[in-house]
C-alpha cells in the first residue's frame, strides 16, 4: 500500500486528476498484450510535462517504489506488468507532443507518448517518411517502440526503430536528465547510450524526448504474391532474391495453416492448397522498381513458384495485401486465446523452422499458424488455444519452450521484435551466457541501486 501522504505528494506534482487511486482504475493497468497473470499497481501517475516526469521518478526512487512506464500497453512480453512490491505505473499518454519536424535536416523530436501512426502521418504530410511500422502502430507509442526496439513489415530494407533513433534524453532514477546523441547525422560524443536504451524495456531510464531520423519516401512501389507447393522452394526464392541484390521493402511469408484460417475468415479465394505464399513489395524510383520487380518475378518462377500474381494498380495491391492484413484477425478469431510468438532465425533456416513448428504442433496437439517476415527470418508462430483449459495451456507452454530450443539450435534468437519482458527472461542465459547476465546485472545495479526501474524484466536474475 502507498501511504496517503505519499499519494498526496504525487498529487502535488501532477495534480489530483492525474493520480489514479481507485481499485478499478488501478486494475485497468495490471496487464498488457502478453498472455500473463496480471499484477495490480498501487498507484497510477500521469505526468503532463518533463518537469513533472522527472519529479515523479525521483519521488518513486526516494520512497523505494518500483516504476513501470507504460505507453499503450501493447507489448507482447509483459513489459508493462507492474511489480508486486508497491509498483507504480507512470503513464506517458500525457506526454504526447510532436515537438519539431525539421524538413531541412530530416529529423523530428517527439515526446515518448506520441502514437506511432499519428507521427508517421504528420511526417507524411510534409512529404517525408518514417519507416518503422509495427502492426500495432495505430496505438503504440514511440517511447514503447524505442524501449522494445520495435520492428515491422519494412524491417528488411529500412531497418527497425533503433535505426531511426538519432538521440534522446532520459531521466535516471534520481530524476536527473541524461542526454545522448544529437540532431546531426554524425555524433560520437560519449557512450552510445541511445543504443543502450533501444530494447531496454524501461529498466535503465525513462525517455523524455526522442530525436528520430526521417527519410524521403520512395516514389513508386510494386507488389506481388507467389504461391509455392513446398516451403523449401519459398525459402530458396527468398535466398535467390537477396542473392540477385534486390532488397524488397517487404517480404512476407504465410504457411498453409495460417492461409487456411485467413481464407476461412475472408473467403477471398486464397490458394489454401499451397504450402506457403510469399508477399513481396519493392519500392524506390519508378525505373528501379520496374527492374527489381522483373528480377524478383524471375527468381520466384525459377525457384518453382506455382503462380505469381503481380498487382497492376493500387487497388490490386490493396487486395493482395488483404491476406496479410487479415492474418492476425483471422487467427485471433479461431480460438479464444492467441499466443503470438516471435522466434527468429537466419533467413536460410526458415524451412527448418517451419518444419519444426509443424512437428511441435503435432506433438503437443495444438493449432499453430505461422506468418511473418521471411526477409529477416522473423516468424510469428501463432498458437491458437483456450487459456481456461489448463491441460492444453500447459502443452502450449511446453510447445513454446521447444520452439525456442529449435530457434536457438538454428542459431536464431528468442525474440525478433516482441521483447523479453517477463515472458522470456528465463531464457536469456540459454541464448547468451552467464557472463552476459552478470554484466547486465552489474550495469543495472550501478545505474539503479534500488532496483526500481521496471524490475523483473529482461534480466530477472
Amino acid at each position: 500500500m502507498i501511504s496517503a501522504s505519499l499519494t498526496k505528494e504525487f498529487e502535488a506534482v501532477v495534480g489530483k486528476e492525474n493520480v489514479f487511486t481507485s481499485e478499478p482504475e488501478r486494475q485497468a493497468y495490471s496487464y498488457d498484450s502478453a498472455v500473463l497473470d496480471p499484477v495490480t499497481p498501487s498507484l497510477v501517475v500521469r505526468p503532463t510535462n518533463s518537469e513533472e516526469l522527472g519529479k515523479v521518478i525521483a519521488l518513486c526512487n526516494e520512497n523505494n517504489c518500483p516504476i513501470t512506464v507504460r505507453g499503450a500497453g501493447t507489448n507482447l512480453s509483459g513489459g508493462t506488468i507492474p511489480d508486486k512490491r508497491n509498483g507504480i505505473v507512470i503513464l506517458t499518454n500525457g506526454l504526447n507532443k510532436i515537438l519539431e519536424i525539421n524538413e531541412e535536416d530530416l529529423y523530428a523530436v517527439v515526446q515518448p507518448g506520441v502514437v506511432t501512426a499519428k507521427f508517421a502521418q504528420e511526417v507524411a504530410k510534409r512529404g517525408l517518411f518514417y519507416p518503422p511500422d509495427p502492426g500495432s502502430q495505430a496505438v503504440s507509442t514511440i517511447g514503447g517502440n524505442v524501449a522494445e526496439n520495435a520492428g515491422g513489415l519494412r524491417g528488411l530494407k529500412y531497418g527497425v526503430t533503433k535505426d531511426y533513433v538519432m538521440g534522446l534524453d532520459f531521466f535516471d532514477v534520481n530524476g536527473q536528465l541524461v542526454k545522448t546523441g544529437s540532431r546531426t547525422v554524425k555524433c560520437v560524443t560519449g557512450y552510445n547510450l541511445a543504443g543502450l536504451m533501444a530494447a531496454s524495456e524501461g529498466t535503465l531510464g525513462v525517455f523524455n524526448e526522442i530525436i528520430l531520423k526521417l527519410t524521403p519516401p520512395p516514389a513508386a512501389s510494386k507488389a506481388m504474391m507467389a504461391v509455392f507447393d513446398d516451403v523449401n522452394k519459398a525459402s530458396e526464392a527468398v535466398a535467390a532474391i537477396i542473392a540477385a541484390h534486390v532488397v524488397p521493402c517487404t517480404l512476407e511469408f504465410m504457411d498453409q495453416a495460417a492461409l487456411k484460417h485467413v481464407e476461412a475468415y475472408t473467403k477471398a479465394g486464397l490458394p489454401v492448397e499451397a504450402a506457403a505464399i510469399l508477399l513481396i513489395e519493392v519500392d524506390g524510383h519508378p525505373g528501379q522498381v520496374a527492374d527489381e520487380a522483373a528480377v524478383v518475378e524471375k527468381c520466384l518462377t525459377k525457384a518453382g513458384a506455382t503462380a505469381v500474381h503481380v498487382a497492376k494498380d493500387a487497388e490490386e495491391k490493396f487486395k493482395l495485401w488483404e491476406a496479410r492484413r487479415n492474418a492476425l484477425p483471422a487467427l485471433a478469431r479461431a480460438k479464444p486465446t492467441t499466443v503470438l510468438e516471435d522466434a527468429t532465425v537466419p533467413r536460410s533456416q526458415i524451412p527448418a523452422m517451419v518444419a519444426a513448428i509443424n512437428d511441435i504442433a503435432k506433438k503437443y496437439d495444438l493449432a499453430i499458424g505461422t506468418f511473418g517476415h521471411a526477409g529477416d527470418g522473423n516468424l510469428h508462430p501463432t498458437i491458437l488455444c483456450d487459456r481456461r483449459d489448463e491441460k492444453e495451456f500447459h502443452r502450449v507452454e511446453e510447445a513454446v519452450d521447444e520452439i525456442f530450443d529449435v530457434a536457438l539450435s538454428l542459431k536464431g534468437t528468442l525474440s525478433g521484435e516482441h521483447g523479453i519482458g517477463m515472458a522470456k527472461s528465463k531464457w536469456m542465459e540459454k541464448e547468451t551466457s552467464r557472463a552476459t547476465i552478470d554484466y547486465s546485472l552489474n550495469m543495472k545495479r550501478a545505474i539503479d541501486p534500488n532496483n526500481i526501474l521496471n524490475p523483473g524484466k529482461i534480466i530477472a536474475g
Partner: protein
Amino acid sequence: MSADLTKLAKLLQELDDQMVACMKCGMCQAVCPVFSETMRESDVTRGKIALLERLAAEMIKDAEGVQEALNRCLLCGSCGANCPSGVQISDIFIKARNIVNEYMGLSPVKKAILRGMVGNPKLFNMLLDFGSKFQNLMTSKASEAQGTRKAPLLEPFIGNRHFNPVAKKSLHAKYGTIDTPAGKSGLRVLFFPGCVADKMYTNMGEACLKVFKHHGVGVWMPATQACCGIPALSAGDKTAYDKMVKYNAEIFAEGEYDYIVAPCGSCISTIMKYWPKYGKEYPADVQKKIEKIAAKAMDINEFLVDVLGVKPEGDAPKGGKKVTFHDSCHLKKGLGVAEQPRDLIRMNNNYELVEMDEADRCCGCGGTFTLYHYDLSKKIGGRKRNNIIDSGAQVVSTGCPACMMQMNDMLSQNYDDVEVKHSIELYAETL
C-alpha cells in the same frame, strides 16, 4: 454496498465465453471516442472487459466502480467494428449493464425517467404535451441557425445545454393514427417516427410522410406506438425495456405492411437486432411475433434507395449550399447504411455534398450517455463540431435524430451558423 459479490460474479460468468475472446491487444484505443478524451484505460474497451473479468472472478471489490466504468461507454460500436478478434463488444456491455444494474440497482433518477416516463407511453406523451405549452416560460432563445433554446433556470437539472424545443403538437397528436393503403409503389410501411421525430423534430417526421405520399407508399402509423426501448436497454434497465418491446410487439403484430421504416438508425437497429436478441426468455408466441416484425425493419434511407430505387443520375450537383454528412454510429456501423443517405442528398441540386474529416466518428451523444456524462459528451461533440466547421459546410445532415440533437447543441453553443438537417428533409425539399 448491498450487492452480493459472489452472486454477481456468478451472473457475469455467463459472459465468460464472449469475454475470453478479447486478447488485450489494445487496438480499441485507436478508435474509442471516450478514451481519446480521457486517455484512461478503464474508459477503453480492453479495460472495461478486464474489469468485468475481474468482477466475474471476484478479484475486485469495488463493484460500483466497475458499474461506473461500464456506464462510461457510448455503445457507438467503433471498437467492435475495429476489433481484430471480432469480440461482440456491444453485446457484452449491454448484457453486463443489465446484470450489474439488476444487482446494484439503477440510480433513482434513471429509474424515474426510464420506468416512470419513457416506459409509460401515455404518461410520457401527456407530460410532453403539457411541457410544450409551458416551455417558453422557462427557456429563452439560444441560436437562430439551429433554432435552439436554453434554460438557465433548469441548469441544475440539464446543464447549460442548448436544445430544440418540444414541438407544440407532437406528430401523433397532430395526425392521430395514420392508415393509408399502398399507392403506386404497391408497398405499405409501418412508419415508426421514433420519440425524437414524434415529439421534437416533427418537421422531419412530416418530411417522411411527404416522401411516402410522393412515392405512393401506404402508411400505417399507430398513434399508440411507444419508444423502441433502446434508452432503457442501454442504460441497463431490462425491466423497462421488456415492457416497451412487448407493448409495441402486440400493436405491430396486428397490421399489414411490407416494411417497418424509421428515420432513426438506433430505432431500426433496436427493432431489427435487439428485439429478437434480448427477448429470448419471452413466451414463444411473443418471440415469434417479434421475429416477424424484426425481419421487416429497415432504415428510411435504405428503403428509398434500395427498395424504391431513388438514385441520383449524372454528376453530383455542384455550386449549391455546402452540406456535409455525419454517419451515425447505429446507421453505418450498426446497419451498414452510409451511401444511401448521401445518394438522397445528391438528389437535391441546391446542395453540394462535401465530406468532413472523420465523418463516421461518434458525435458523443450515445443516447442517454449525454444525460449522465454531459461534460465528456460535450468534449467528444466538440471534435465533431470542429470537423463540421472545417469542412466549410453550411448544413450538416445525418440519419439519426439523437445525433441531430447533439450537433444542434454543439453548434449552438459555439454560435456557428450551420443548420442541422436529416437527409430525408433535404430529399423532401425536392418534391
